[in-house]
């Protein structure tokens, strides 16, 4: 089962929930992978401290132009939507960081002057933290687009029973890439006006992707009651409520997972895993009934 942990607002506790879920599942004997899809600012390794066994570069396609073969027809510049290939006086300029790798320019070139080449945009690191298989991605400094590195993280994952995808914050393309093929999304929020505002955006996002989801309310005793009311009014399952515990914040600051620093948190995460598994089973049984 693939569980994505996302949010909307940053800093609500995605990595906290994702790493603790992975550790709890491993302790219960499941084969589990933790994928850090926040390739711009990955933090899972701060808590899981994996032993890295392999590093792979992530490459993206860019055009390479043989200026001698170029007939200056200008078609490459016309087809490109991103300003990444620009015919100018006597030559064709390529701006690799703007290229989306669509292949249009080398497909359209009538003289074969443009070929597909590649450049590095980031890297993927594989390792293990105890029984948890870990994959993390890192976008190179100065690069703008994270989806290719996120996609590489997912491709590098082992086929374990449980995959936990720790996503970046927000609701746009990096998050979409992280969560789109998951079986269930956990939206982690905090019960404050900012948290609720962004949760609503995140709910719209998972609904647009037609993914089943639940909400985890972190630091549940701060802020106001609007988030709980919103979930109730919209028939959204609150999969777990985690209290505002300064000990958790302090352990977090030191890079210590909550369920290791405070063993009583194990039960909270075990209950959450069971709740998610029950929901998943109900959906599968439901769709089996529908198709029989």
């Amino acid at each position, binding site marked *: 089962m693939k569980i994505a942990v996302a949010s909307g*607002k940053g800093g609500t506790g995605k990595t906290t929930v994702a790493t603790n879920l992975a550790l709890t599942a491993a302790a219960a004997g499941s084969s589990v992978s933790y994928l850090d899809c926040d390739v*711009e600012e990955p933090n899972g390794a701060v808590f899981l401290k994996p032993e890295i066994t392999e590093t792979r570069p992530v490459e993206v396609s860019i055009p390479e132009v043989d200026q001698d073969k170029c007939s200056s027809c200008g078609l490459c510049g016309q*087809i490109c939507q991103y300003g990444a290939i620009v015919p100018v006086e006597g030559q064709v300029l390529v701006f690799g960081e703007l290229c989306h790798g669509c292949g249009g320019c080398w497909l359209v070139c009538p003289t074969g002057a443009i070929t597909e080449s590649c450049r590095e945009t980031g890297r993927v690191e594989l390792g293990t933290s105890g029984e948890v298989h870990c994959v993390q991605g890192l976008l190179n400094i100065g690069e703008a687009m994270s989806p290719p590195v996120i996609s590489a993280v997912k491709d590098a994952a082992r086929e374990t029973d449980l995959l936990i995808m720790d996503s970046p914050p927000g609701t746009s*393309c990096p998050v*979409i890439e992280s969560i789109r093929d998951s079986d269930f999304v956990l939206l982690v929020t905090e019960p404050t006006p900012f948290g609720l*505002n962004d949760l609503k955006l995140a709910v719209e996002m998972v609904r647009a992707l037609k993914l089943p989801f639940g909400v985890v309310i972190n630091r549940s005793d701060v802020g106001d009651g609007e988030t709980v009311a919103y979930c109730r009014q919209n028939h959204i399952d609150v999969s777990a409520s985690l209290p505002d515990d300064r000990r958790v914040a302090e352990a977090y600051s030191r890079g210590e997972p909550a369920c290791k620093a405070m063993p009583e948190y194990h039960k909270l995460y075990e209950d959450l895993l069971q709740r998610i598994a029950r929901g998943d089973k109900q959906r599968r049984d439901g769709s089996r009934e529908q198709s029989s």
Partner: protein
Amino acid sequence: MPTEPAELVVISGKGGTGKTSIVASFAALADNMVLADCDVDAADLHLVMDPKVVRRENFSGGKRARIMSGHCTACGKCEEVCRFDAVFFDGPGNGRVDKTFRVDPVACEGCGVCAWFCDYDAIEFASVVNGQWFVSQTRHGPMVHAKLGVAEENSGKLVSTVRKAAGAIAAERNMELVLIDGSPGIGCPVIASITGADAVLIVTEPTLSGLHDLGRVADVVAHFGIEPMVCVNKWDLNPEIAAEIERQAHQRGLKVTGRVRYDRAVTDAQVRRQSVVEYQDGGCAADIREVWSIVRDVVSE
């Protein structure tokens, strides 16, 4: 002679460190300023600014392909050339074929290659409106903000649009400062908010995650030729790490603009739709005032 307004961008690397809360307080303390909320896919600043919208504009980040099923011959060329797994063979039948091809609008990258190579003119490739941006009045001055459509791309382009509009208003009205609330991360929306800015403040938190992320975002800011300032928010959650962050910042030659303590009043103020400096004088509000006086001096240099 009017001088050009200075741009101060507040970013964080790690999410949730308190950018927006601090920007809201800076807005209350600054004179002569235009606000820009460049966190376009999860904008929150408006929740404590009470903006009155005076102008609303559509934003088009790019184009999208749409197969007109009536014209499709199911030749499959579109699926063959699409590099983004956006074309599916599950569209409705027409008179000639039982099934046609269909573009998934979420996966479509807007490259136009399918439309270019379709031999039957069956693919429409047109601009889409994928967000909106607004010019508003607030109690602290004008504010430009935006909303990117859910599951949309090209937030960098919308960020640039918001920034440019805020700059134009500031220049028009002879204002000194454009104060920009940035987004978390280091990718295109952050890059779009910092390139060419006069000053960047990184708000971080006293955690190992915050320290790690600060390193990366500071590298990105340096990559674009700017020396950022650093401020540790909620410093008392871990004074040792707060001190370590400041030590590493000094080592890199970055200016440390002071620290702000953890204070539940920030949330209490937010629930009342206010910035914390409007809600109280003491506690973290006093810390933010001090940070602002340092930041303001750096920006006006």
